[in-house]
């Protein structure tokens, strides 16, 4: 059930960023979920729909009332976990359980797969005075170590 907390945080970030970019409606959201993140894609989608689609207009909460995210599509990119062998440097995917290096048999150290992050969103913006706005904006990336936690 902690997916609800993750999606709540996602919606808060989206609302702030939508305001900064002058967006009026968010149409698509893309999140990356690592294979060892303890976040279930199914539960993330359920939470996203629950928090963005009011069943009845009068029941809309503060995160839904203005319809900024109503109807937004959610893309979930599932990223398999990867380990690196501390002995021979080989990188290999971690499936479910024990993962020994396929080359030398040592225990691998997880280098990615614990992350859950908001990768990007698409939104409608009013056309600016100088014509169409930029169609893609890259914000500075967070410390990758932070994304992996």
């Amino acid at each position, binding site marked *: *059930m*902690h997916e609800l*907390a*993750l*999606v709540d*945080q*996602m919606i*808060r*970030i989206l609302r702030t*960023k939508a305001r900064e*970019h002058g*967006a*009026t*409606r968010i*149409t698509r959201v893309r*999140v990356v979920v690592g294979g*060892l*993140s*303890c*976040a279930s894609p199914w539960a993330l989608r359920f939470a996203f729909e629950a928090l963005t689609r009011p069943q009845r207009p009068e029941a809309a909460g503060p995160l839904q009332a203005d319809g900024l995210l109503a109807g937004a599509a959610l893309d979930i990119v599932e990223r398999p976990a990867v380990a690196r062998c501390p002995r021979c440097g080989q990188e290999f995917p971690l499936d*479910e*359980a*024990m993962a*020994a290096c396929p080359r030398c048999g040592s*225990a691998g150290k*997880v280098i990615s797969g*614990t*992350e*859950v*992050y*908001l*990768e*990007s*969103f*698409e*939104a*409608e*913006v*009013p*056309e600016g005075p100088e014509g*169409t*706005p*930029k*169609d*893609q*904006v*890259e*914000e500075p*990336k*967070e410390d990758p170590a*932070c*994304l992996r*936690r």
Partner: protein
Amino acid sequence: MPATVKVVLGKSLREANETWAGRVRDKLRTLGTLAVNLMGSPGCGKTTLLCATLQRLRGLAPAMPLYVVEGDPYTTRDAEAVGAQGVPVVQINTRGGCHLDARMVDEALRHLDLKPRGTLFIENIGNLICPGGFDLGEDLRVALLSAPEGNDKPEKYAAMFRRCDAVVLSKMDLCGPTGFDPGLAREAVRRLNPAAAVFSLSARDGTGMGPWTEWLMDRAAAKRSTADPGGV
């Protein structure tokens, strides 16, 4: 027709928790106080281990301040058990929530009169999955695995056992009746997480408590050196 924009962010959804965890970590660094996050299934013996550990630490280091933050979905039973040892304790009830987060711990610490150079134990909600995903600002993540749970649990709950600093194999007095094989459990942990310290003990009869408490004492000593002499 409105134009569209794509904004590429790369923003962690655990950001809010990470911010709070950073606050907890800064506070404890200044104090030179070690924080231990105890995790494991419901009924794996976290509270029994905690009470036995507090008793031992008090004998070994009577001057070291000890604190406990107790997480439970409901009831204050564990906080009462810990409080009976005369250790300051704050109860967090998550009302059914499956894990503690760093904001809850930060709030709990406001209710403790923390003295420098101590040790704080945080007993997490009984659950082998969700607590593993939330940094509480702790120094040590400790996962318990009790004999009745079976020695195959490290493989099944790999995310928990892969990301901890120590594994405590608990209720070792029950190995006979449950068929638990501590050697196999150790081997499973070693394959997943070779750096983790592994302790086999029984908090009830005291077997194996020595190496575990000595390890904690060493870590507490290392953390004390981070205390800010001006701030405390």
